[in-house]
């Protein structure tokens, strides 16, 4: 029995080894591992060439001064005998060739005098009788010694001629201070673009990942439960609220539009409206209340708060107008820091673009949470049977709404054009599912809404996270065109999903004690998050953000390969043009920036954590 087992074991082991060998053999085969090719002379030569180029990044260059000197020379000595030595201007640099004539293939000696010390350059044979002829043959490089002298032996080329020909030394000298090459300038521009690409992507990603990480954290979402009435009402409230919000903000923008172009009204609105909003909120949201205020007062407060919200959107439009005017002014008058003006101008554009969505989101969530609370009240007050009927109706409506929204999305994506498939049938199914849910649950039971939201969010995050940032970049390049903006969007999106995951794991591992203690004081969910969760997650959040910033800097250096902006584009171009010295400059820049960021982020991490 024992024996059998051990034989079986060694058989297993042998089989395992065999399988591994097959896997690797196949791997070698399909990845073209070929060391012979690596050793072939052609490859070796180009490898050496590339390595040498890479070792000399094109960063500095010098102004060069050339000293060009010719010496007359005869290939095949003329029949009348050795030509006499020409007059030499020995006060300047000069060269001599001895002998002054020779047969092809003979070795002659070239000597140079009075050159600058330690300069170098080629010595060439110039065929033809014109000393300024550009055509040259052969190339031997010489370097002068400390006294400006060199000597060289070279083989006479097979260019016999009856006329005089020349030997020419062209010695080049670096003069003045080194200066940056064009490549260096370009690299600098692009590396700055790269760093800011990473910065923007990290900022946007972090800001959006934080709220996401809370709803993707199991420990926060598990206790979130609501009765069906409340869930259905808030489901209905979200799209209705978003639509209302969008149209209201649109309407505000129309009212604000004629005034936003005027600097005076801009300044007036931007400075005065906040005061009004401040007083309104102070009145409508008293810091502390011991008793529940009467219904009338609460209604009045709600009205005032809505007005304040409308006023604040009005204010946002004016703010956008003001920054746009200031930006244009600054752009024209600030000269070298005019980019600040452009920045303001762009900012106002972004603001103008974001405000309607902001309004939609704000109104959507407000209406949704208001209706949710209303639903909670209703389910507390009504009796079983009435509530059941109400639940049936509301759940059917909510289910239909969700499915209709999905139907609309599918219609938009695939343009099916058959409303029965995208609207009627899904709407019916949604209503049916809602009804089913309402029938299966007891009227006052609470549903695990939190876990549903958690699961959906997690699934979405995991799906998106598995798409590489580079692939996202390709999609965004198609959407918004080649350039750094596509890179920002791609890296930003990838940052959101991967940070949200990492963050939410941190939220899940916080100490439960403080959470319990804060909850026990009567704090609501928002307050619990602010006072018990956030203080605990600040250090890991900072640490992960830094880590992500690192990754984003790295990613932004290559995202240009697919057109996403940054230095990658330049690098790829130079590699394709076989311009290895320029590519080397860019690689060097990447190495410096990445290691610098590495250093800074690890320093900061140590500081904060």
């Amino acid at each position, binding site marked *: 029995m024992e024996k059998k087992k051990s034989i079986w074991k060694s058989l297993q082991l042998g089989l395992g080894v065999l399988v591994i060998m097959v896997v690797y053999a196949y791997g070698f085969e399909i990845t073209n591992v070929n060391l012979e090719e690596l050793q072939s002379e052609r490859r070796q030569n180009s490898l050496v060439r590339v390595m040498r180029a890479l070792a000399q990044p094109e960063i500095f260059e010098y102004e060069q001064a050339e000293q060009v000197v010719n010496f007359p020379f005869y290939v095949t000595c003329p029949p009348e005998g050795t030509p006499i030595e020409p007059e030499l201007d020995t006060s300047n640099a000069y060269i001599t060739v001895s002998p002054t004539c020779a047969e092809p293939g003979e070795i002659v000696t070239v000597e140079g005098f009075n050159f600058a010390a330690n300069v170098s350059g080629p010595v060439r044979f110039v065929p033809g009788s014109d000393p300024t002829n550009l055509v040259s043959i052969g190339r031997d490089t010489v370097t002068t010694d400390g006294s400006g002298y060199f000597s060289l032996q070279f083989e006479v080329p097979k260019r016999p001629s009856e006329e005089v020909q020349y030997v020419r030394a062209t010695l080049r000298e670096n003069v003045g201070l080194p200066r940056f090459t064009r490549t260096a300038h370009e690299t600098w521009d692009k590396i700055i673009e790269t760093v800011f690409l990473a910065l923007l992507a990290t900022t946007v990603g972090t800001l959006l990942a934080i709220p996401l990480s809370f709803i993707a954290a199991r420990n926060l979402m598990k206790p979130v439960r609501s009765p069906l009435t409340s869930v259905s009402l808030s489901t209905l409230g979200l799209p209705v609220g978003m639509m209302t919000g969008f149209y209201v903000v649109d309407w505000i923008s129309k009212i604000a539009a004629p005034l936003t172009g005027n600097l005076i009204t801009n300044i007036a609105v931007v400075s005065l409206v906040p005061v009004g909003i401040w007083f309104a909120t102070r009145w409508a949201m008293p*810091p*502390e209340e011991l008793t529940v205020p009467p219904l009338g007062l609460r209604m009045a407060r709600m009205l005032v708060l809505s007005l304040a919200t409308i006023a604040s959107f009005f204010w946002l439009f004016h703010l956008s107008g003001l920054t746009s005017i200031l930006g244009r002014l600054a752009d024209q008058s600030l000269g070298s820091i005019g980019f600040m003006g452009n920045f303001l101008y762009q900012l106002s554009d972004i603001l103008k673009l974001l405000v309607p969505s902001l309004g939609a989101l704000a109104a959507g969530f407000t209406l949704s949470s208001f209706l949710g609370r209303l639903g909670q*009240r209703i389910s507390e007050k009504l009796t079983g049977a009435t509530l059941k009927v109400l639940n049936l109706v509301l759940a059917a409506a909510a289910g239909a709404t969700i499915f209709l929204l999905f139907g609309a999305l599918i219609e938009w994506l695939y343009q099916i054009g058959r409303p029965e498939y995208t609207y009627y049938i899904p709407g019916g199914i949604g209503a049916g599912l809602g009804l089913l849910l309402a029938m299966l649950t007891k009227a006052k039971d609470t549903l695990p809404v939190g876990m549903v939201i958690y699961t959906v969010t997690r699934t979405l995050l995991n799906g998106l996270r598995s798409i590489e940032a580079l692939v996202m970049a390709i999609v965004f390049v198609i959407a918004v065109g080649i350039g750094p903006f596509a890179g920002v969007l791609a890296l930003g999106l990838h940052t959101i999903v991967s940070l949200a995951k990492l963050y939410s794991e941190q939220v899940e591992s916080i100490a439960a004690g403080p959470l319990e*203690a804060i909850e*026990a*004081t*009567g704090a609501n969910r928002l307050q619990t998050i602010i006072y018990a969760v956030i*203080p605990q997650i600040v250090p890991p959040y900072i640490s992960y953000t830094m880590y992500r910033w690192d990754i984003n800097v790295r990613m932004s250096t290559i995202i240009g390969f697919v057109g996403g902006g940054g230095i990658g584009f330049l690098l790829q171009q130079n590699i394709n043009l076989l311009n290895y010295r320029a590519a080397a400059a860019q690689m060097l820049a990447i190495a410096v920036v990445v290691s610098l960021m590495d250093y800074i982020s690890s320093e900061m991490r140590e500081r904060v954590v």
Partner: protein
Amino acid sequence: MLQIKNLTKIYDGGVQALHNVTFDVPKGQFLAVIGLSGSGKSTLLRCINRLIEPTDGKIFWNGEDITAATPDEMRRIRRKIGMVFQHFNLVHRSPVLTNVLAGRLGYVNPAWSLLNRFPGNDVKKAMKQLERVGIADKANHRADELSGGQQQRVGIARALMQDPEIILADEPVASLDPVLAHSIMKHLEEINKNDGVTVLCSLHFLDLVHRYADRVVALNEGELVFEGLPQDIDDKKFKEIYGRDAERVG
């Protein structure tokens, strides 16, 4: 007056932590809850402010049924019930003052909490509570820089910020040395006697029970096995509460 009627708690895993527990706590009483580890003391205290949802039974407080309270009502009820924990449960990275101010969260408008703002009166009040427990000088230190005894005082100050009518103390001194234990218990006693706050306090040491409690309830495997005065716990009762093999110490 707090009335607990047929309270039962069965955890998700099927553990029956409380079984049909019934007793009353008159206003202003210092009630000790004793019992072996795992007997359900923490579960009982947490059911009272519904940090744990009871499975069955009712809890009445001044005539209002806590177990039937809606979320909004629960917020109002909880802010009148302070809680003190064995492991203090302070937010370590926040300053002591913020930890104490957190006791007001049930009162302040949640919107202002977004900005981390408390009314000026609350800040003054928080300083007063810190003075009362003798660590006003630590107000701006981070909570985790304090010793265990100091942290528990912060915990008490936080509970006091709630203007509580009841304080639930779950083994408030179990992780402190005997000297500190007495100083913390004295704070609770002082609050009980001077402010008339009802205290429900689970304790492990009988000498503390004798020294501080007006009345005792004892749990054994989730059942109420004793209810009476501390001095009524004789050897026979003791064995009923703590099991046959238990020995009295101290």
